[in-house]
């Protein structure tokens, strides 16, 4: 057996991809006790919050009544108690839910992560640091509001990975203060399986989708980026625009097989996908419009659909190693 076949065999051994059926079974055996305990806590919490809501609503009504009698103008005067009541309720929910969220992540999400691969470590409160986010060079604007959570790290086969949820924003100061989201979603980093020294960024293509081949010209005007790299795969060019500072190494990294894998991954996720290759690492940013890995207070935990969503979001990230074949170590980098 050649070392490639050997490598493939170890690959299969380490990456027994977990199916949804596996996960269903795991929910019934490994998770059910925790789920039931948490569900009891959630119910009690939801009940208490309903009472608290009723009390707040009652108070608001009394205040409204008193204000109405003393002849305050209906608009906007009467609006204030309603707004204050809503804020108060939101605050109570946040405070009361905190412990529940913590327990949920520490048990359920942690167990799902180690179910996917026992070599993975989960830290609910950590995230990919801002400096790494900037070093990936995917986004040109440095964020000044930056937060994240649900950090996962570890080794999948020969490949070291880490990912977390991130929300990076840019806020302009001054009178017309406005906030713009630079990136929100899943940010994934892994050790790349080939040696390289160049810098390569793969971005979703907007110009070429609109203007077809003519989109190439505006792409090459982008002066803040490295030169454009034109690749020969038309499907890849339809989805992405590639900038890099070395024409040959860029194609060494983006081999025809990796391009196909990236196209497949893009189709599978159907989200905005950004990639970059810097400092012997691969960075993958996947846009999401919702909060990931957060529990819901007012819907039951015992619904498998909900668990499936957590599982699939996590599996998508962990699966990048397999999808992009990062465990193929047939080059000098081992």
């Amino acid at each position, binding site marked *: 057996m*050649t*070392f*490639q076949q050997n490598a*493939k065999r170890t690959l299969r051994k380490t990456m027994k991809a977990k199916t949804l059926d596996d996960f269903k079974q795991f929910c019934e055996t490994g998770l059910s006790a925790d789920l039931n305990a948490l569900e009891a806590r959630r119910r009690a919490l939801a009940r208490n919050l309903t009472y608290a809501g009723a009390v707040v609503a009652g108070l608001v009504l009394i205040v409204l009544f008193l204000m109405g009698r003393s002849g305050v103008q209906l608009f906007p005067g009467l609006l204030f108690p309603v707004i204050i009541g809503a804020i108060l309720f939101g605050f109570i929910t946040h405070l009361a839910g905190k412990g529940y969220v913590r327990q949920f992540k520490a048990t359920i999400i942690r167990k799902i992560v180690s179910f996917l691969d026992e070599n993975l470590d989960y830290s609910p409160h950590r995230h990919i640091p801002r400096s790494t986010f900037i070093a990936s060079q995917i986004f040109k604007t440095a964020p000044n509001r930056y937060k994240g959570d649900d950090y996962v790290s570890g080794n999948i086969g020969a490949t070291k990975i880490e990912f977390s949820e991130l929300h990076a924003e840019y806020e302009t100061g001054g009178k017309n203060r406005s906030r713009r989201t630079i990136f929100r979603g899943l940010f994934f980093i892994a050790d790349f399986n*080939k*040696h390289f020294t160049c810098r390569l960024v793969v971005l979703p293509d907007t110009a070429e989708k609109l203007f077809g081949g003519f989109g190439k010209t505006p792409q090459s005007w982008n002066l803040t980026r490295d030169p454009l*790299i*034109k*690749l*020969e795969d038309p499907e890849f060019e339809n989805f992405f625009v590639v900038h890099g500072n070395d*024409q*040959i*190494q*860029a*194609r*060494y990294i983006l*081999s025809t097989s990796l391009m196909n894998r990236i196209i497949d991954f893009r189709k599978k996720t159907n989200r905005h996908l950004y990639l970059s290759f810097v400092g012997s690492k691969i960075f993958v940013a996947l846009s999401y419009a919702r909060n990931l890995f957060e529990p819901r207070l007012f819907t039951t935990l015992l619904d498998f659909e909900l668990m499936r969503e957590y599982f699939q979001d996590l599996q998508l990230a962990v699966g990048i190693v397999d999808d992009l074949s990062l465990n*193929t170590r*047939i*080059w*000098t980098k*081992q």
Partner: protein
Amino acid sequence: MPIAIVIIVPLLLIPVLIYNSLIARKNQVLNVFGAIDALLKKRYDLIPNLVATVKGYTQHERSLLEELTKIRAQALSGQISDDEAVELDNKLTRALGRLLLVVENYPNLRASENFMHLQRTLTELEEQISAARRAYNAAVTDYNNAVEMFPTSIAASMMNYKPRRFFEISEKQREGIDAGEHFRR
């Protein structure tokens, strides 16, 4: 007067820009071609090491090893044309493919660290060479577009620039690569 400047300056600038863009594209082609050359040379440099390693384990493969050494000597003699260089390169690819098939019969050799490292380096170089060829073809496309498209085509014909040929893989070479596929994956 200012109107004249607005008209004349761009008219003077356009030929300069066209001229420079043609030169840049030609140089890009030459630059990548040089890179392919360097990578091929790197592959030739692996051969003595490979031959020495394989020799220690095998008795029956002398002729194949001698062929490899001969190809390398010819390629590095410096007295060959471009076409001969391509032909030698194809020969080398095929000979290496054969060697790696033969090695299947020598488990000790295959398992030796030295050989594994050589094989990894070789796989890496082959992939770099193929990347460089793709880059070359992209540079040639860019250059040919400029040479054949209006208005740069006018300047190109004045500068005596001709369309260049792509790096094509001949039928023979494809066979060589297929043998290589067997070990590459």
